[in-house]
């Protein structure tokens, strides 16, 4: 994105018009000021508060004991806490698996939905239902369905001859179980946006491809994917950001357990909060922000480089 804007800005600078520039600048600030005011007003106090907390010992249930302890909280998390790195690792595994499965599934579903069939409106409407269910409610429902002895999922699985799964109640399957819940809920969102991208491909391009007998995998690879790549980029970003912050779904299904099997960063932060250790919680929050930002922005760079490349590769658009 940065590269793009730089190029465009260079183009605009090529035709300098001093008076307009001045006005432009003023207008820009006028337009952006309300946003800045809101963001600053909402983030200054919380940031200062949690920034201070990160360097203190504080207990929610015993405010009297607060004191400055320097980097002790960070030191504890990074070097002495046996769960910290596991939670970070789980968060990234979670994000990678969930987002990639959602992308593939979402893309396939979008292909199926990209049709002229008469009932397609109903079909699309029905498909996006999961997105609108509160994750708390859906998490509970999944927990109920996953129940290993009397749950409906195992009931159906055993009735077609497979063995029971332990799902959210065993350390080795719990993460998969919560992933299923997350993937189920957000794949339709991916589908919806990809579908929009596909519908935007102009009929001429499709017709041309048909005449050239480009079809099947080649058609997808050469025409569809490059053309909707910008849309895919947006979807990836949305899902990466959101899946990193996942909280309520996992919290109601497993609360991070069994053991630490599903203890993602956000879930762990919450349970630290509930135990009242505000200092450790704040330090944890800052470490997560730093680590996630490093990974996400490295990832973004790659993504945009690819986007630019794919734009060059893409066939002429109508």
């Amino acid at each position: 994105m940065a590269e793009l804007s730089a190029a465009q800005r260079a183009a605009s600078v090529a035709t300098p018009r001093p008076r307009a520039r001045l006005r432009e600048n003023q207008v820009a600030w006028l337009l952006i000021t309300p946003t800045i005011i809101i963001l600053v007003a909402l983030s200054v106090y919380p940031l200062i508060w949690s920034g201070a907390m990160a360097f203190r010992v504080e207990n929610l249930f015993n405010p009297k004991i607060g004191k400055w302890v320097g980097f002790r909280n960070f030191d504890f998390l990074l070097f002495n806490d046996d769960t910290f790195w596991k939670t970070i690792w789980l968060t990234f595994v979670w994000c990678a698996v969930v987002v990639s499965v959602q992308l593939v599934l979402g893309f396939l579903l979008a292909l199926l939905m990209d049709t002229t069939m008469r009932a397609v409106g109903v079909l699309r409407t029905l498909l996006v239902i999961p997105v609108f269910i509160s994750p708390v409610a859906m998490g509970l429902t999944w927990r109920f369905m996953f129940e290993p002895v009397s749950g409906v999922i195992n009931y159906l699985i055993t009735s077609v001859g497979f063995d029971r799964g332990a799902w959210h109640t065993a350390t080795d399957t719990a993460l998969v179980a919560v992933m299923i819940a997350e993937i189920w809920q957000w794949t339709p969102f991916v589908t919806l946006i990809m579908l929009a991208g596909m519908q935007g491909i102009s009929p001429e391009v499709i017709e041309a491809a048909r005449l050239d007998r480009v079809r099947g995998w080649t058609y997808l690879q050469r025409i569809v994917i490059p053309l909707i790549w910008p849309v895919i980029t947006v979807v990836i970003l949305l899902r990466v950001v959101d899946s990193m912050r996942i909280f309520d779904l996992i919290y109601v299904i497993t609360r991070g357990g069994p053991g630490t099997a599903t203890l993602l960063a956000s879930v762990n932060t919450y349970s630290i909060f509930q135990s009242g250790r505000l200092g450790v919680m704040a330090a944890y929050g800052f470490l997560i922000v730093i680590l996630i930002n490093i990974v996400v922005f490295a990832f973004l760079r790659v993504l945009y480089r690819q986007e630019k490349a794919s734009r060059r590769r893409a066939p002429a658009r109508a």
Partner: protein
Amino acid sequence: MGTDKETLCKQSMAQARTLKGELSRRRMLQVSAATAATAAVMRDVKWARAASEETHGPGWYTDDKLTGKVVTYTFSGQRWGLPPKAVVPTFKERFPNVEVEIIEEPVGEAYTKIQMRAASKSDTFNTAIADSNQWTALGNIGAMESFEPVLAKDPGWAEDYFNDVPPIITNGYRLPQNATGKTYGLSCDGNCKLHFYRKDLFQEAGITKVPETWEEAIDVAKMLHRPEKDQYGFVTTARRGLFAGLELYQIIMSLGGSWFDKMEEGGWHPQFNTDTGHKAFEILLKLMEYRHPVTLNAADDEVNAVLANGTAVYAPLEWGTSVLNNPEFTKFAEVFGTDIVPKGSNPEGKHIPLMGGFAYYVNVWGKDKEAGFEFVKHLNSGDYTDSRIGRDYVMNTGQPARVSLLAKYEDIRPYFYGLQKSFPLGTPGFPWIPEAFTVADLVGNEVVAVIAGEKGMDEALKAMDDGNTQIMTDSGYYG
């Protein structure tokens, strides 16, 4: 007792009917709850007239000059949400010019919210529910108003209350939390770890007495464990967090152990990495061999769900609850028996159930505190003020702390038997210190890590002691 029960149900139903006439939405909920609660016992009783002045006790008085609004925070969930609403009609009879608003909050997150509200000196409420394990935490920030003047003004009521509610409960709501402390809240909700078993299965298996010791409990779990027919011999709450910590602590206590060596200056040294700690953990792990699969992830709701559907059949250290006696909730309602939790078979071993339960306090920064005091007092009244109060409280799934109410309604709520037997022997569910949740959460996470196979027992017990010591050091307990 039979006729008493009949009258009670009739009264409750009658009240339900009359209320339906002036059906406000909030009222309707009391009605529906009352109906549901009594449905079971109503099967063979007929109709009778409603309650009257005869129900008044010596503590009854009214005051139409008292005005204002009671704003109460309670937990959502039938045990806390419904009973206070059920006693509002009788409260309005006594104080017609006081408004009452009862706000239910998600129970899982309530502790932190209560604490945050108190820390910010919120004036949006005048009464709220809280845990005895949070009492010093709230007391430390001066959030609670003393009940002493109110009790002094009505000595008859106070005497009745303190005679009826066991000291292990009332002491928890004093500051400091012992018999000499001043009362800052009244408890209408008593709970403790109970021993749930299935009478029918005991009979089938030829088990003639409820297990007394942990060894006997393990044998019973083994005997009833039939995984091939979806019947598991043991279930408990081993979800991450404090749930699992209290399972271990319960066993440690019953072996004669403790959380700290001494709970006073010079003490505060955690006692998990000890012989008792090891023995207790071994008992827990043995029981876990017969666990229902949900155990590793279960909080009380999941435990009760599998007990209700009959796939788990034995829970020797579960928190008391009325749901297992509710025939609309489980078809085994009639055959669930309760008793006191097992004890250690060693000489120091004793029956010593962990106590739970809650009390209402009056917010220092709240408005209309006078009305708040009256409401909390009313809520905690047994027959001393009016027999309808206790009845409405119990009929709407309340779980009273008053022994008189437990005894009176034992026929309708069979598990009250277990509570009555346990209360006199109880011990605080957590050490009564502000950091109660902090230390319990730490212990719980370690316990779960061992059960889940992520850690060894010795390593976990050591981590409990180290973690506790660090927390206690930070809080300045070692001077």
